[in-house]
């Protein structure tokens, strides 16, 4: 890997200033993607800016009214072990325990997963399903972007030069709502999703009042399929209804063939994984709170 300098700013303004003055800087949170990319020559950097010392990027806060804010550099294991995340966002605690393995989870962050902007990112379909937004800071201040709009192409996203991701915000869960992320991998761990599906469902008197579905590894970016969720509105969560919504998600997918699976296999899995994620989300919504 080419030589670079290292900086570890202690505040957000300092980080923004550094980033603005260093065009070929790369941000380092857990490093589990960045260091692999630097080592293989897929990316290079003159400066690596470690954002883990910035307090706001390294904390999570939850309130029943405002929801959950996850600092962009918080490593996955802290999410898995967080009692309020376990009880209010069980699907999020789960996905944080599936990214990489135990050691990777000691470093990798959801913020990094989002900024790496891989089509296969495990956390993004769930974040989309949970209506999460990305909080971004830059030279001209702060802005929030819905996660479904954050990624623009494989490895590319909305971050403009000089901008960085501060946190991910997830609204408080509605009563009688549930969410799930499921992925298909040939092994049982340490694998990249061949297809992943995130789903959230809110019930009102047993009828679906809101639903969101997103897929990974089947398009150039994690794929939000609004029509799939809309098709469930005012429906009872029957097997037929969930199956029909999953088919809509499947039709929105445009998978490719590569070493992780053929396009035909991925297309097949879209319907299976979307249906299973919806089933689990419904089951969670139906649990008595």
């Amino acid at each position, binding site marked *: 890997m080419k030589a670079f300098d290292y900086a570890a700013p202690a505040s957000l303004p300092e980080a923004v200033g550094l980033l603005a003055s260093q065009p070929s800087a790369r941000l380092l949170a857990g490093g589990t993607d960045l260091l692999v990319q630097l080592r293989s020559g897929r990316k290079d950097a003159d400066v690596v800016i470690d954002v883990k010392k910035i307090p706001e990027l390294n904390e999570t806060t939850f309130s029943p009214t405002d929801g959950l804010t996850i600092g962009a550099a918080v490593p996955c294991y802290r999410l898995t072990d967080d009692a309020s995340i376990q009880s209010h966002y069980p699907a999020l605690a789960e996905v944080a325990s599936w990214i*990489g393995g135990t050691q990777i989870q000691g470093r990798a962050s959801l913020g990094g997963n989002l900024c790496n902007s891989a089509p296969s990112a495990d956390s993004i379909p769930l974040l989309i399903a949970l209506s999460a937004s990305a909080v971004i800071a830059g030279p001209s201040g702060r802005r929030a972007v819905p996660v479904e709009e954050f990624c623009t192409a494989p490895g590319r996203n909305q971050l403009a030069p000089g901008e960085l991701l501060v946190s991910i915000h997830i609204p408080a869960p509605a009563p009688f709502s549930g969410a799930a992320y499921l992925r298909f991998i040939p092994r049982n761990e340490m694998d990249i999703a061949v297809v992943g599906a995130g789903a959230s469902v809110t019930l009102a008197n047993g009828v679906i009042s809101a639903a969101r579905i997103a897929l990974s590894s089947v398009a150039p970016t994690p794929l939000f399929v609004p029509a799939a969720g809309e098709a469930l509105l005012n429906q009872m969560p029957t097997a037929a209804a969930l199956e029909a919504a999953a088919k809509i998600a499947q039709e929105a997918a445009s998978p490719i063939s590569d070493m992780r699976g053929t396009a035909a296999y991925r297309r097949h899995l879209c319907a299976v994984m979307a249906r299973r994620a919806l089933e689990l989300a419904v089951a969670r919504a139906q649990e008595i709170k």
Partner: protein
Amino acid sequence: MSAKVQVQTTINNEPVQFLCEPRQSLLECLRDIVGLTGTKEGCGDGNCGSCTVKLGDRIVTSCLVLGVEAAGESITTVEGLAHGSTLHPLQKAFLDHAALQCGICTPGFLIAADALLQKHPHPTEEQTRFWLSNNLCRCTGYDKIIRAVQAAAIEINGAAQ
């Protein structure tokens, strides 16, 4: 080449200072600068777990940590597991259960298993396999490793209730 950076750490309970380039991984620093070669490199991209060390309160693959990131941190490597000349119960269990063949993955498994037993004093087989799935072994088929970890759990924490 960038200017070298002085890094102050605690390794296996001893204060250690080393000088490294920012691009050098913690693994390189431990092995090539500090001289602790017990931690092994198998893949360089975090998938084999041979380079597992404890950094602060969490295990990491040290190939995916920069040496400069270790400033102010405390690190445990396989060289720090035993107490003097007395083996750690996990080390002893790995020997008693023939849980190693070539031994190259063993340091990583020991550090990862030690962290497992601190989190789950009596892990189930499933918990053990899940926790250790970031560590590859190509010799044993894992059977004897899992048995060794379970035996060490009883040795350290007593029989499960």
